[in-house]
């Protein structure tokens, strides 16, 4: 085995280990998605093409409902924008990390889901190949999960109820990891506070955009106080 093969295998190993919680979460959610699509009477091509081209759980669950209802392209577009708005924050956070990714960049951007963002952001020492592999693995988990749910969902007999909490646990663990790595903790409280207040005020359907606006306003208002904390790590 030559060197590049060895390093490829090694990257795959690292990426696979990093992506394991996503494997659990995506198979669970993907199976749920496949089961739902099947129970709504869709042919397999619909859930599959949505998983392949949209690759966003929340938009796909909404998509199933839209496909079953009347044709309304404008509603589809605005729903997708509202549900996807949080991706804007991932992109801004990843501008630096995904710089210099060359040919890998288009797929990395396409695959910037909540979970992939979390894993790739948290792995500071990650190589470009590892990030790409995490993105590709996550994508494959999502597609295979939907397939299993659609094909074998009715046969599932294990009581895996509650396993979906692994996604919450992953975000919490990564939150803690980042919290302990950073010197500046105030953005954490801003994020939690704004989102909790928005959820309380606007309800579970409409809170994400108000929460994002709140976070932006607070971070902008406190820029003078917060920015000096990041000055040390700007130079690379």
């Amino acid at each position, binding site marked *: 085995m030559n060197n590049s093969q060895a390093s490829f295998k090694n990257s795959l190993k690292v990426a696979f280990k990093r992506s394991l919680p996503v494997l659990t979460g995506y198979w669970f959610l993907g199976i749920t998605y496949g089961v739902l699509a099947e129970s709504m009477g869709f042919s397999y091509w619909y859930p599959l093409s949505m998983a392949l081209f949209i690759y966003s759980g929340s938009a796909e669950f909404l998509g199933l409902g839209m496909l079953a209802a009347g044709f309304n392209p404008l509603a589809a577009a605005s729903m997708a924008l509202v549900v996807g708005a949080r*991706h804007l924050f991932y992109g801004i956070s990843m501008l630096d990390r995904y710089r210099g990714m060359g040919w890998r960049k288009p797929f990395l951007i396409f695959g910037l889901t909540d979970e992939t963002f979390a894993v790739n*952001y948290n792995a500071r020492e990650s190589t470009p190949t590892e990030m790409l592999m995490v993105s590709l693995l996550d994508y494959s988990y999502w597609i295979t999960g939907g397939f299993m749910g659609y094909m074998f969902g009715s046969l599932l007999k294990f009581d895996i109820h509650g396993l979906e909490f692994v996604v919450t646990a992953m975000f919490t663990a990564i939150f803690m990891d*980042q*919290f302990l790595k950073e010197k500046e903790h105030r953005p954490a409280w*801003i994020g939690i506070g704004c989102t909790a207040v928005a959820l309380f005020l606007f309800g579970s359907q409409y809170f994400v955009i108000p929460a994002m606006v709140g976070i932006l306003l607070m*971070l902008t208002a406190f820029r003078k106080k917060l920015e000096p904390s990041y000055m040390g790590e700007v130079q690379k």
Partner: protein
Amino acid sequence: MTSQQQIITIAILALMTVLTRALPFLIFPAGKPTPKYIQYLGKALPLAVFGMLVVYCLKDVKWLEGMHGIPEIAGIVAVVLTHLLRRQLFLSMAVGTALYMVLIRVMV
């Protein structure tokens, strides 16, 4: 809906979703210097975003009925404490998820 309309619907959802993911990279391409304000946001946002994601996961919890969100909060607290003690991502996730799965069965 005709199958053509269904294809259009899926295409719209796909396009809009990838747009939300690509927009920051399109507006601030790697070749040009990113404005200072956006650089600052790039540093300060992530921790806020992870906080947002944790709360986001609780959006469908019914606080006033059923189990009052106790399994969720206990699971999150377990993750936080385990992480403070050991700082191992998988261990923290496993402990929190296991506790959650036990609680939703025991508390019924």
